[in-house]
């Protein structure tokens, strides 16, 4: 297990010309916002997601997960494989609360716990 070291960035946040480009369409998150989150200390897909909701919309990250990972990897100068696992959570597809409440699926309640490496 490796220890993640976070240090406050010494250099100021450097804007890029295409920071305004939408990356996560479902939650309308831009490249600049994701870069900013990484600048502010987010290191994994999960951390960016918890700040910005990237991958939490209708498509559940099907479109943007790869794009967000590529941005984090570029910002940190690490390969995507070294960014830690992206956790696959129930439900893997959006589902109406109404449908869930009608079902009583076991395991739904215990899913909240996060796995930390």
């Amino acid at each position, binding site marked *: 297990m490796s220890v993640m070291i976070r240090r406050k960035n010494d250099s100021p946040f450097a804007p890029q010309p295409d920071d305004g480009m939408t990356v996560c369409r479902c939650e309308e998150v831009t490249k600049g916002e994701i870069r900013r989150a990484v600048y502010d200390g987010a290191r994994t897909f999960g951390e960016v997601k918890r700040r910005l909701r990237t991958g939490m919309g209708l498509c559940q990250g099907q479109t943007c997960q790869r794009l967000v990972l590529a941005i984090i990897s570029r910002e940190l100068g690490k390969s995507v*494989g070294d960014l830690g696992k992206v956790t*696959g*959570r129930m439900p893997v597809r959006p589902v109406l609360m109404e449908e869930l409440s009608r*079902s009583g*699926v076991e395991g739904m309640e215990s899913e909240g716990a996060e796995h930390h490496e």
Partner: protein
Amino acid sequence: MKRYEVIVIGAGPAGLSAACAAAEAGLETVVFDENARPGGQLFKQIHKFFGSREHQARVRGVRIGENLLKRADELGVKTVLGATVLGVYEQKEVAVRTEGEVRSYRGDAIVIATGASENMLTFDGWTLPGVIGAGAAQTLMNMHGVRPGARVLMVGSGNVGLVVSFQLLQAGCEVPIVVDAAPRIGGYGVHASKLARAGVEFRTSHTVVKAIGAGRVEGAVIAEVDGSFAPIPGTEETIDVDTICIAVGLSPMSQLADNAGCEMEYDSAKGGYVPTLNDEGLSSVPGIYCAGDMAGIEEASSAMIQGSIAGAAIARDLGYLTPDEFGERAERWRRSLDGIRSGMFAPGMKGRTDITNTDEGYPLSASLLARGFLDGADDGIFPSMIYSGGMRPIIECTQNIPCDPCQDACPRGCIVVGEDITDLPRLDIGKKCTGCALCVGACSGQAIFLIDDSLGDGYGTVGLPYEFLPLPSPGDPGKALGRDGEVVCDASVVEVRDSKAMDKTPMLVMKVPVSALGRARFFRPAENKNYA
């Protein structure tokens, strides 16, 4: 809670094959798929597949899908459609949403075969309507009969981009340009050649930088890229298209495996996060198997074999097959899998640019890799392309890919692939070609032409595979096009030969001067009869 012996998630080629192998051994098997139709990607694949007979080569993907469904049906596999699996829990419990309700089922074993999702590219304007995935284009055309656009820019020259571009042409769309950021065309040369001779231009080391338009795509800007794939300022070019189709790869949809607690790994050669599996497809969780694109992007042929192995392994685990019975089946399947995974484009070869020669030692065509067509320099090199007079097949197949239907197709034994399925086809010039055209229809790459110089008066004929509607009629005038899509000379149709055995790849025979026999490879009707 309802219990099944085997629960399969995904009714694509991998899942259905797993279900068949399990059901065949006597297991009670259910398949859940969120789609309204079973078959996964297969029903969009209207082209003929590669491989050898055991891989159902030269059979169209749709037909392979139909055969698989029929078999699953006969074996009593229960397929539940419109059934989305939301999660997989401990004790091999799966949560399935059907008709507004979520229900749990338990399996003694589970096969996860959820396939892949398409990768997207971000560029200025990529969220405009008219920017679509290649898979979406296929769904529109081949499932719903809807043309995605009038003029399409294809981004990505892997086999998916090439196959979908050809299908767009067949649907009556124009595809002026295929761009790829890599310096080489990624997919099979034969797929690229079908496009090039129909007039599609390839731009390697190019990407799309902008979608132009207010409210929808009205044009695209492409640009050359440097060695690190960054667009080079000043190389921008605006092209007139109304659709931008993205075919830049697939990512395994492996979330359910992670959700089930399977050990995962990141493998860029496999396309992303995939479960760690043994050679039977077993994950780190006992009883949970994985197969197909979700375990690493490959092909339907390999997905089916992986699925079969997983299904049979479950039958063994649960006592329906003896280890020997399983071993026998598995050995056959593995051999078949090794075959389909061999050659220049095998899964492990992705991104390799250091291959300069074929296995036979012939230099790979630089023109084919960069521009999508063989040029004059290649003519003297590949023996199967050397014309020796009379009625002869000319085979423009110059890369080592696992495929051999041409050999089986020729009733006279004129074509020999030999021991290794990736070997280039050779011509046995001692055997007499009767011009039956079966090889032309059998070649999935549409790379076989029948040349005859004996028409008289300085004329000869070129027979070529022609998969476009409406089919021209004898006597129709037009132009003969070269491998590069440029006009070679005037031509007229002599006949269009079709038969059941050719399975919708008719041979169009055109009359051209003998001097053009070496160059004329496509026919463009004078009057472009419009597609209804």
